[in-house]
């Protein structure tokens, strides 16, 4: 058995799909972890006995803004990479 070279076309497609999916899951997990950390910090100043409605609202809003921010940062970074590549 010589490793992955013996894979059929269909097996290869499946492997690639799996890799893609695992990366997507890891990416979503990273976003989730960060969002939880950041929005907890922003919205819960003094942890009470329950999440009150204003805290819940804040967390929901914070989540949306964090994703907005992520998209903005992503755009800025891609633009910068493009600029650097044309300058080379």
């Amino acid at each position, binding site marked *: 058995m010589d490793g992955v*070279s013996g894979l059929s076309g269909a097996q*290869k497609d499946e492997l690639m799909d799996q890799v893609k999916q695992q990366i997507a899951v*890891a990416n979503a*997990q990273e976003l989730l972890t*960060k969002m939880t950390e*950041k929005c907890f910090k922003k919205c819960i100043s003094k942890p009470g006995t329950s999440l009150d409605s204003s805290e819940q609202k804040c967390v929901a809003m914070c989540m949306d803004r964090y994703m907005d921010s992520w998209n*903005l940062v992503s755009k800025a*970074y891609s633009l910068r990479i493009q600029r650097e590549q044309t300058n080379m």
Partner: protein
Amino acid sequence: MSTDFGDFSQGLTGKGGDKELQEFLMVEKQKAQFNAQIHEFNDFCWEKCVEKASNKLDSKTETCLTNCVDRFIDVSLLITNRFAQLLQKSGGM
């Protein structure tokens, strides 16, 4: 996120390596690195620029986020270049 395909793709480049898979993994690796970088940027630019979570990111915050990414890269390039110069001057490398 640690997506390090280093060993895996190296294993593929050896005898019997699969070109298509190699290329696929390289592209995916680059995409993953790009994503990881955005997570990192967003992490500290959020701290720097976003005061309060409101209904919308205001234009000031948006500008701050965009500038934050660009200035961070500037600083990174500046430090890298200066560090290289320092190394050269000291004849270290």
